[in-house]
């Protein structure tokens, strides 16, 4: 009967991952001989994700596609999965050893630098700025923050980074409170870079209330619909992201290829915009890393093009 591909995400039900689920389901529908589904822990906790995967291994599905809550935490369990002959592919985990293929929508360093470049343009390459992360524990957020810091240090000597990597704990309200506090501490703040997808919402509200719309530049990752009001009001200058739906689709496609034992080649086309020319490189472990160029910049002008 059908081969079973299960996608394991960081946190079930989050807007981001329900969007991803659409891609997962779609792939399952389009491809016969494949059933796909997406599951995730009920709490944002690596432990819960590990337990989910343990049970998947026991259940002996054919392939697992994982968006790790924190890649290193999955080394052990993913190794077991592979030992049991289950195909393993991952996403947002380019530092993971125990995976066969890790798919990145883009090069995270580049993405971080991209944030910083946008911020720089908006700030006129000068002034103090700060950055958020969902949690010091979430790898990609930290990668982006660090990359953009490095980028600034290299290209924009007049930009001054203050109190970097504030944790929002993926809570808009916390992002809001911390922004308020940052504004007190650094009255002449000119730019803020968001970390988690809800950060721009909190930051935007703080700026609106402080009457600083337009006076401070805000970039970050976010969901178009969730962030739209602040993009419109100008409280958030712009967001960048990759479409979780496409990512979900591509992840499952890769998983299927693993099952069928197909070759992965540099520059291959996975048939989804942004993933048409995948860069292939060796990962930290035995596996490979496939990187696309799938990021989109959203601002008040092109906002209506994206309905998710």
């Amino acid at each position, binding site marked *: 009967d059908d081969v079973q591909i299960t996608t394991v995400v960081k946190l079930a039900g989050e807007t981001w991952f329900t969007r991803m689920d659409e891609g997962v389901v779609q792939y399952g529908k389009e491809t016969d001989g494949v059933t796909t589904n997406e599951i995730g822990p009920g709490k944002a*906790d690596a432990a819960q994700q590990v337990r989910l995967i343990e*049970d998947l291994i026991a*259940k*002996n599905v054919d392939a697992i596609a994982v968006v790790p809550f924190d890649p290193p*935490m999955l080394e*052990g369990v993913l190794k077991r999965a592979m030992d049991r002959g289950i195909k393993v592919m991952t996403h947002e985990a380019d530092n993971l050893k125990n995976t066969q293929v890790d798919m990145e929508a883009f090069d995270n360093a580049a993405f971080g630098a991209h944030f910083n470049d946008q911020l720089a343009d908006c700030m006129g390459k000068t002034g103090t700025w700060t950055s958020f992360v969902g949690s010091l524990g979430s790898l990609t957020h930290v990668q982006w923050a660090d990359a953009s810091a490095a980028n600034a240090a290299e290209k924009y000597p007049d930009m001054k980074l203050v109190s970097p990597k504030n944790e929002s704990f993926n809570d808009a309200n916390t992002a809001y409170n911390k922004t308020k506090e940052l504004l007190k501490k650094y009255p002449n703040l000119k730019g803020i870079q968001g970390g988690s997808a809800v950060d721009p919402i909190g930051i935007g509200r703080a700026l609106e209330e402080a009457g600083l719309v337009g006076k401070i530049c805000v970039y970050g990752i976010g969901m178009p619909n969730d962030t739209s009001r602040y993009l419109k009001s100008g409280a958030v200058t712009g967001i960048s992201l990759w479409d979780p739906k496409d990512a979900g689709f591509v992840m499952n496609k890769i998983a299927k290829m693993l099952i069928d034992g197909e070759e992965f080649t540099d520059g291959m086309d996975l048939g989804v915009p942004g993933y048409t020319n995948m860069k292939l490189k060796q990962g930290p472990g035995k596996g490979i890393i496939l990187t696309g160029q799938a990021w989109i910049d959203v601002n008040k002008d092109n906002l209506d093009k994206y309905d998710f």
Partner: protein
Amino acid sequence: MDRQLNFLVALNALVLVAAVAIAGQSFINIYNLQSMATQIPELGLLAIGVTLAMISGNGGIDLSGIAVANLAGIVSALLVPMMVSPDELPMAYAFVFAGVCLVVGLACGLVNGLLISRAGLTPIIATLGTSLAFTGISVVLTNGSGVRLGYIEPLDNFIHTPILGVPICFAVFLAIAIAIGATLRFAPFGMRLYMLGSNAKAARFAGFNQKRLLMTAYTLSSVLASVAGFIIAARISSVKWDYGTSYVLIAILIAVMAGVRPSGGYGKITCVVLSAAALQMLSSMFNFLNISNFFRDFAWGLLLLIFLAVSRFDFRTLLSPQTKPGG
């Protein structure tokens, strides 16, 4: 009071049967049983820690378990490689690793114990504070990112290579549980702890060394947590400060599900182990059936309430007019 025991045994049996009926044979194949067995210890140990704290009474509770576990794992992961090379002497590495974990656990336990027994902090505040503090230390030590151990055979075997079909870590867990259970039931320490929990003033008049008892209880709890830390590290071959944040409540859930009395003076380790097992099987079953984890929580809560209802209609409670002490 052995109602709890019966109920939990029945529950375990029930879940098992249901699982096989719905999820099919694959649920009770040796692999899955072992996989579940490897998942029980970490939560089980934390729950036993909470139990010890609760038994000691006066609002006793230990919220710092998982924080201690993570700190123990992190300190070891950072320290041990400097002492022993995992590649040359994997066995030695494993043992030193365990040793360091225990030492950290002991240290954390002493801190908790001192705060509660000497400085007279309310347990819930003390352990809430220390759990943040310990977590904080972990963050500082690692800058917030996880630390990989890489594949270390003895550690991996400790979890995944069963002896006579039983994963070593599970065997160890059972051994510890039995040891603690016996201590509580038969050793002077245990008897005193129960009595302290049921009437602290009388305990003082009877000449117990309250401070030492509390010290021991909370230290023991943290040491158990550090064992959990070791098991976690071995199982997922890396350590991180925010691993198992959801465990705090689940550990308490397991304890109260086992009939441990939050107001102190009563609690059975056997029941704790059984309730840990029940929750594990339930959640594995749901995962087998692709039922969402949210619904699992729903079911856990419902189960707890049902359990209370069942043990409520205990003929003794129906006969005697006085109400049970409430927490």
